[in-house]
């Protein structure tokens, strides 16, 4: 594809893929003469010995009929692809050795549906298989600062849960988020999101979500053979809900401060371990987050952040032999705190400390200390080295992590707040 010129790309492939709509229309306009030349070319074209002769490129149905149809590509969405790889060397009381893995390969597409709505999907291939992490429609017709989101998407909880793991500042999501919410926290439902200016230099945003299914996994419980099910048909009162309130403001000329509070309520879920199951379980997670960024554009930038989480309800699950699934109604707390220093526009180092009471028998304390260095070779690929000291139930593990991530195509995010 790299060898195709712009006209060739626009004429032969899909004008809207990988380029903004405005550019696509411009390219399409430029491509018209080239497309005409293709149609006039004699059948056959370039072939290699031993390969069957190919006919000239068929006319697109839309060109022939003068109409856009189901075979037209002019309204195709913008696509993006992310490759996230990880080398993980661990030494300690747990798993030892080196693991090289393609952590995830993500394909996403995004396009406007009409003036008031756009849709997207994010499909991810991981070790466990291929899954649809997000597929949702954003409806903007309720008012300028209101959005109604419908479908499957990441829940609006805290500062980091809306981002995919490969977009985070660290190799993995912080420990308490993984312990209480999961590495990724998706849901099938509806969310209303709105914001309002607060003076000239700040804004207040809030969201409310209702979900019929929550898509998350807990490594701690799965390691014990316990699976939770947050989906299924249920009464209205059993729907999961989220709420978030956050303020975002300038502090002086070169700093910003964000404060937020989040809540996730799951009134009904089931758990299964071994041969037994537990029903009518419930859980709540409340989080408070603060992020402070300082530094002028183009100069050193510092970012400090913290988040405190409190999980209550049927938080603690344990297998007591093969016959009994023990459920403990226990309040658990966890937090993380970090500081990042971007000493060059494309280089940064950071330190993160995290601690959490785990949702397993006895609620052992776990902590992680991460030191990481990130180098952006360009906007589209990134190398990260990280060192982690993890302590769990008086066992220590040291890990050296190398993450290499590449972004292809129209990968972009809105203002993250």
């Amino acid at each position, binding site marked *: 594809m790299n*060898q195709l010129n712009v006209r060739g790309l626009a004429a032969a492939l899909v004008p809207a893929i990988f380029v903004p709509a405005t550019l696509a229309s411009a390219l399409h306009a430029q491509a018209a003469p080239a497309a005409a030349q293709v149609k006039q070319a004699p059948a056959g074209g370039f072939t290699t010995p031993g390969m069957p002769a190919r006919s000239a490129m068929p006319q697109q149905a839309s060109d022939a009929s003068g109409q856009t149809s189901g075979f037209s590509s002019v309204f195709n969405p913008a696509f993006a692809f992310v490759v996230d790889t990880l080398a993980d060397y661990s030494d300690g009381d747990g798993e030892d050795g080196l693991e090289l893995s393609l952590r995830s390969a993500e394909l996403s597409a995004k396009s406007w549906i009409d003036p008031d709505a756009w849709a997207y999907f994010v499909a991810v291939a991981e070790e466990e298989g291929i899954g649809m992490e997000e597929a949702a429609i954003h409806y903007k017709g309720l008012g*300028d*600062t209101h959005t109604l989101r419908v479908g499957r998407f990441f829940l609006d909880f805290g500062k980091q849960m809306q981002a995919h793991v490969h977009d985070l500042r660290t190799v993995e999501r912080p420990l308490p988020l993984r312990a209480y919410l999961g590495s990724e926290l998706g849901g099938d439902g509806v969310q209303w999101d709105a914001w309002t200016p607060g*003076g000239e230099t700040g*804004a207040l945003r809030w969201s409310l979500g209702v979900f019929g299914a929550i898509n998350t996994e807990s490594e701690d419980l799965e390691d014990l053979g316990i699976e939770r099910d947050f989906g299924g048909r249920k009464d209205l009162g059993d729907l999961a809900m989220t709420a978030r309130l956050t303020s975002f403001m*300038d502090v002086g000329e070169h700093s910003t401060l964000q404060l937020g509070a989040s809540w996730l309520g799951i009134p009904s879920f089931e758990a299964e371990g071994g041969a037994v199951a537990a029903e009518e379980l419930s859980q709540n997670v409340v989080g408070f987050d603060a992020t402070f960024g300082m530094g002028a*554009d183009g100069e050193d930038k510092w970012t400090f952040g913290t988040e405190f989480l409190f999980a209550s309800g049927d938080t603690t699950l344990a297998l007591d032999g093969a016959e009994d699934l023990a459920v403990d109604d226990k309040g658990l707390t966890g937090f993380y705190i970090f500081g990042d220093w971007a000493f060059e526009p494309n280089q940064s180092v950071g330190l993160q400390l995290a601690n959490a009471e785990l949702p397993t028998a006895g609620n052992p304390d776990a902590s992680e200390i991460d030191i990481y260095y990130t180098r952006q*070779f360009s906007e589209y690929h990134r190398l990260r080295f990280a060192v982690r000291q993890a302590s769990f139930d008086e066992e220590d593990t040291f890990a050296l992590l190398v993450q290499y991530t590449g972004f292809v195509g129209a990968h972009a995010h*809105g203002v993250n707040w």
Partner: protein
Amino acid sequence: MCAAAALLAALPTHAADKLKVVATIPDLASMAMAIGGETVEVVVLAKGSSNLHQVTARPSHLVAMHKADVFLQVGLSLETSFVPALLEGCGNARIQPGAKGFVNVSEGYAALGVPTEVSRKDGDVHPHGNPHLNLDPLAGEHMARRIHAGLVANLPAESKRFDAGLEAHLKRLAEARARWELAAKEWKGRRVAGYHSDYDYVVRAWGLADAGSIEEKPGITPTPGHLARMVQRYKEQRPVLVLVAPWSNNSTVARVAEQSGCAVCELPSRCDAEGKLFDWIHMMDELHARLAKGFGTHWPPAQPPPAASGGV
């Protein structure tokens, strides 16, 4: 200096009947204020002199965009690090692309360096061409007319006022361009190099000879091998004046200059929202003055500029 002071005096007063204009860079803000005068209230997003590709969106940007009647951008993907997210999040239909409040000043201008193939193997490629239009000495009239059209479209009742503002601005611009052209007569064919492609429009405008950039590909940190080739090339083509922006006047440039025996000339990369270079014409005057100093030629030009006649 007086003009800059006058423009600064016209900074936002939050009058309800003023046209609320948000400009991505001070260059566009200064033109909007020169044309709109007291009728416009202008907010600038990227105030400093950092690389525009690395500007971070701030809460105040979101609020300003939300309240804006008119949004001015250079376009050509110059502001791609912060504008798309702000446009998406600001919740203001008046300034979305396609609406009359959205003004892309590069629209209709023949951009330099439009790639014949769009691939990331060529670095931080801008599919529409070189985005540093605000540093083109010949683009002043085009940008001013685009801004004027945007202001008129959004506040037609003040069109006569905007017409008068444009006329006065173009008169100043014609006088300035005469100065620049006169100074540049002595520069034709002189060899220059850049760290990035910021000053390619200056090179084209005045017929300078491009000795190649220190960046091998736009936005990509140069490799040691490329730096060695550039040092050798600059040595062979001496004298080469290395043009850098405040954000790119870095240790790599200093090393290349030292090893090749070439001089470095730091030029402004855009107007300064809070300093004496707020006005675009003053900023370009400063750019030409520093070029003249770098080349060892006269500034202001030795001969009096010819009287402005007609267009610019």
